[in-house]
């Protein structure tokens, strides 16, 4: 069977889901028979490829850069997977959402760091008014729940996709 191309990345997330991905251990060898990892924090490629078959996207969409990125990924991806709770629900990054953006920035840059007096407006991405779950911005094809999703779940889901099937995950995951 022809190998599928895979990309993985994180936006506003803690990289925990990627840790869980690595936790599939030696089964990664098995997966590498079905997938070419074209783009990932785990490989050294700077630009998101023109086209990938499957993207595992960890994290919420929180900044203007995230926003551009997620749109680009959607354009250049066949099957987009929300990878983990931050991508699926907003989760921890979205805990700031009940506050005004200004309050959040103040808290982060001024109140919490006594030596700092300004909120930077250069060199760091601009925060959006809220942190969004990925599917509130672009269409998502599959939701891999968990904080983080278990290694088994990730492996099984990818194996199913490799075999050309849509993974059925209900009963194996816990929402939120």
């Amino acid at each position: 069977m022809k190998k599928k191309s895979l990309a993985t990345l994180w936006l506003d997330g803690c990289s925990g889901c990627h840790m869980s991905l690595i936790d599939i251990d030696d089964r990664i060898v098995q997966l590498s028979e079905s997938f070419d990892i074209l783009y990932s924090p785990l490989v050294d490629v700077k630009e998101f490829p023109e086209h990938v078959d499957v993207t595992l996207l960890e994290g919420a969409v929180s900044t203007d850069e995230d926003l551009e990125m997620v749109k680009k990924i959607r354009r250049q991806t066949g099957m987009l997977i929300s990878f983990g709770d931050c991508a699926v629900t907003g989760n921890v990054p979205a805990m700031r959402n009940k506050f005004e953006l200004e309050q959040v920035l103040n808290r982060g840059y001024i109140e919490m760091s006594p030596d700092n007096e300004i909120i930077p407006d250069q060199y760091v991405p601009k925060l959006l008014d809220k942190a969004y779950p990925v599917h509130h911005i672009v269409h998502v094809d599959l939701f891999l729940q968990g904080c983080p999703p278990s290694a088994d779940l990730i492996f099984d889901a990818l194996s199913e996709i490799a075999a050309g099937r849509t993974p059925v995950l209900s009963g194996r995951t816990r929402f939120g």
Partner: protein
Amino acid sequence: MSASVKIKTLTIDDRHVGARENQTILEVARENGIEIPSLCYIDGLSAHGGCRLCLVEVTGIPQLLPACMTVVEERMEVSTQSERLRKLRKNILELYFSERNHVCSVCVSNGNCELQDMAGETGMDHVHFPYLYPDLGVDITHERFAMDDNRCIMCTRCVRVCDEIEGAHTLDIKDRGIETRIITDLDQNWGDSETCTLCGKCVHVCPTGALFEKGKSVGEMSKRRQFLPYLALMREEKR
């Protein structure tokens, strides 16, 4: 109970079942191992009819009926799992999650939560409605328990158990619509309540992480509710 109890026969999901008159569809279904989802209903307390998850279809009736409050009738044909019901239930659950701030990964009830379970059971794997992110607080003034409005789904189990079983009526509801909140006494701090008997029943009937024992951390709060049907039965017999 009166001397002669009439028996009704009906079908639930094409299964023939017998029921005592005055039994509700939900009771009969559960007796027969047919699971109808619900969040506000709990054995031992009066039915509330507010969570809308136990809505079922009954042949010949255009509206959906809440199984927890609909009394069986002879030859009733009940359907609990149609495609339409499944879709509506998913939507209702999504509305629950969109309403307040449910962050399971940092919640005391993560893994022991009926709302979370319900999402799993109905296959709801994402919320496609916008989240409302209300600005809500936590009342930690009580010596043993805490109330987190962010996780409350307004099922009123706590209000009912406090009133119907404990008899304290410490808890009640204030305001309307999206602004409704559970309050203690006259909207005072729980810690200042003079009516609360510290019995903890509310904490244990609460389906979510809204009511919990202090000192519990993420995922540590599991609820024990076996006492409820027993207490309810005892009260019934005393009457």
